[in-house]
């Protein structure tokens, strides 16, 4: 019984993993980068030093918006305390996407930082794939569900999960690849299961809309209002009004949060007499995401509503969501999320490679295609991500539409890597693309230092941990690229063990 279950599961694991492997690799790697989304954003806006208190930065942002954007329908401020920066988003009909962003710290009177999506690009790509809504989310959810199937079927078919727990034989054989696949998978298995499951949950409105439809019918607004009671709603009155001072509202909100800090501030129709301000608690001091909020009347500054989430189902959802996006995570936990995310990317990359190894020698079209797509994804995507960072440094800082250009460069580079991988023999493509990646990562700290004056020894001397850490990670990636290139070229004369029985298990 167990045998037949295992055998039939092998096919499920192999094919579910192959079909979505490339997409999952892209989601995993960008998601792993998004663990440091705040830090990437800060690196991509070197004009902001991130000095001073977050609350002062909020006040600076509101003061600037009040002067320059009084007619906007809303201002949405996100306070990022890890980088002591406030990112403001406001409506602007002249912008290609209908809105613009500006970033502030406590010393910013007029925002000067270059326009960029920053780490938010990796975060959005991770679950929306830059496809039109809702298709990106549907595809990402489907991929995550298949990944859960792949993980669980992988546990079932692993014959010796405990006996091989610590086993890694780094030979260039199929055995070595299988060991690596298993070690990456098994050692961080709790993380992989957690991150996959909690990744499916937040998109439930896309994947399981029927509960909402059955209870609320077409009235989506009611469903939203009950799901997020913390978000006050009020139509503009049409008569102009003056927004009260934001400072006292921030103080009162902090008092309501009982020591919790300010996370986000939404100000609706700020130039209208019916304006209102909603302040949400920072996600950094609790597992749950968005658990408390208070609302104030915009013109009087009086409290008009307060909400602490205590509905069990909603709290469960908030904690699952919070576990996935890891806004709570203190430094050590954050690095562990990053490392375990890389391990998951490693599981997928080694799994894709195993599919090939188990079928060698093979001259079929499927083998041809998979070998090239692997190279185009596993090395091509990191090159595109690094290219996004290069574009941030090389494009003129003053260009208003540079943010979109950075994203275009990401996609063009990825496409170019794919094309290159299609045209070259896979081993050469692997080696050459890995050299490109290693150079892109290894040279970026120097280029960045030349253009911004932040980074390298300067960062070490001044205790600029953000730039220092960024440079070190880039150097580590360069080393990894060099190792991959070396292995790809060294594997020229294949010394293979005789093939083991059947498919990987």
């Amino acid at each position, binding site marked *: 019984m167990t045998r037949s279950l295992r055998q039939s599961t092998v096919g499920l694991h192999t094919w579910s993993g192959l079909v979505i492997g490339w997409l999952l690799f892209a989601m995993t790697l960008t998601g792993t980068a998004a663990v440091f989304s705040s830090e990437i954003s800060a690196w991509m806006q070197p004009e902001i030093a991130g000095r001073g208190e977050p609350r002062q930065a909020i006040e600076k942002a509101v003061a600037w918006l009040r002067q320059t954007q009084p007619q906007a329908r809303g201002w949405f401020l996100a306070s990022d305390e890890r980088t002591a920066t406030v990112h403001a988003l406001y409506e602007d009909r002249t912008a290609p996407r209908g809105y613009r962003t500006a970033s502030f710290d406590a010393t910013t009177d007029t925002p000067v930082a270059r326009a960029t999506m920053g780490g938010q690009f990796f975060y959005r790509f991770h679950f929306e794939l830059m496809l039109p809504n809702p298709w990106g989310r549907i595809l990402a959810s489907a991929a995550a569900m298949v990944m859960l199937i792949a993980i669980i079927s992988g546990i079932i078919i692993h014959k010796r999960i405990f*006996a091989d*727990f*610590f*086993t*890694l034989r*780094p030979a260039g054989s199929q055995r070595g690849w299988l060991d690596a696949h298993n*070690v990456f998978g098994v*050692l*961080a298995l*709790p*993380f992989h299961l*957690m991150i996959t499951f909690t990744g499916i949950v937040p998109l439930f409105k896309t994947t399981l809309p029927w509960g909402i439809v059955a209870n609320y019918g077409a009235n989506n607004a009611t469903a939203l209002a009950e799901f997020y009671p913390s978000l006050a709603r009020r139509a503009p009155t049409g008569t102009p009004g003056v927004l009260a001072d934001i400072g006292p509202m921030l103080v009162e909100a902090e008092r309501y949060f009982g020591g919790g800090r300010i996370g986000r501030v939404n100000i609706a129709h700020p130039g209208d007499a019916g304006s209102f301000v909603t302040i949400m608690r920072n996600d950094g001091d609790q*597992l749950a995401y968005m658990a408390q909020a208070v609302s104030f009347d915009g013109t009087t500054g009086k409290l008009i509503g307060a909400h602490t989430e205590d509905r069990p189902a909603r709290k469960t959802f908030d904690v699952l969501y919070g*576990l996935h996006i890891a806004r*709570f*995570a*203190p430094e*050590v*936990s954050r690095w*562990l*999320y990053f*490392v*375990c995310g890389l*391990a998951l990317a490693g599981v997928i990359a080694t799994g894709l490679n195993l599919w090939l190894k188990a079928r060698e020698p093979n001259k079929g079209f499927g083998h041809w295609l998979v070998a090239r797509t692997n190279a185009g994804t596993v090395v091509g995507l990191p090159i595109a991500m690094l290219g996004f960072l290069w574009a941030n440094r090389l494009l003129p800082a003053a260009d208003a539409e540079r943010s979109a250009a950075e994203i275009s460069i990401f996609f063009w580079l990825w496409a170019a890597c794919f094309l290159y991988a299609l045209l070259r023999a896979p081993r050469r493509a692997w080696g050459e693309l890995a050299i490109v990646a290693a150079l892109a990562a290894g040279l970026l700290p120097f280029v960045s230092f030349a253009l911004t004056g932040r980074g390298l020894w300067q960062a070490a001397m001044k205790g600029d941990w953000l730039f220092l850490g960024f440079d070190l990670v880039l150097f580590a990636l360069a080393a990894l690229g060099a190792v991959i290139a070396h292995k790809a070229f060294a594997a020229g004369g294949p010394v293979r063990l005789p093939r083991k029985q059947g498919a990987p298990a």
Partner: protein
Amino acid sequence: MTALATLPLAFSGFALLSLSMDRHLRQAAVQRHQARRPGGWALLALSLAVALLSGNWRFGLVEWTGIIAAAAALVVLVLVYRPRALSGAAAAGAVLGLVGWAYVG
């Protein structure tokens, strides 16, 4: 920085567990010993306890699940590159973990 205690303790625990397995005994060139398996589990349990007892247990639990992955990966790396150093590293890890516990706890 609870990790200063939980990581070495978990490393030491996993190292002892691996040294209770025949294959890794041969790699590390050490004699079999009955106490390693319970000792390994005990050290893992101790690292969990330290993680839960230091401040916010919810954060501690999440961090610990990452810590054990990192600790086990370190054991795997030592077994690949310096297998004979593993038993010494296990002892050092236990001492370091206890010192770290005294320091952070």
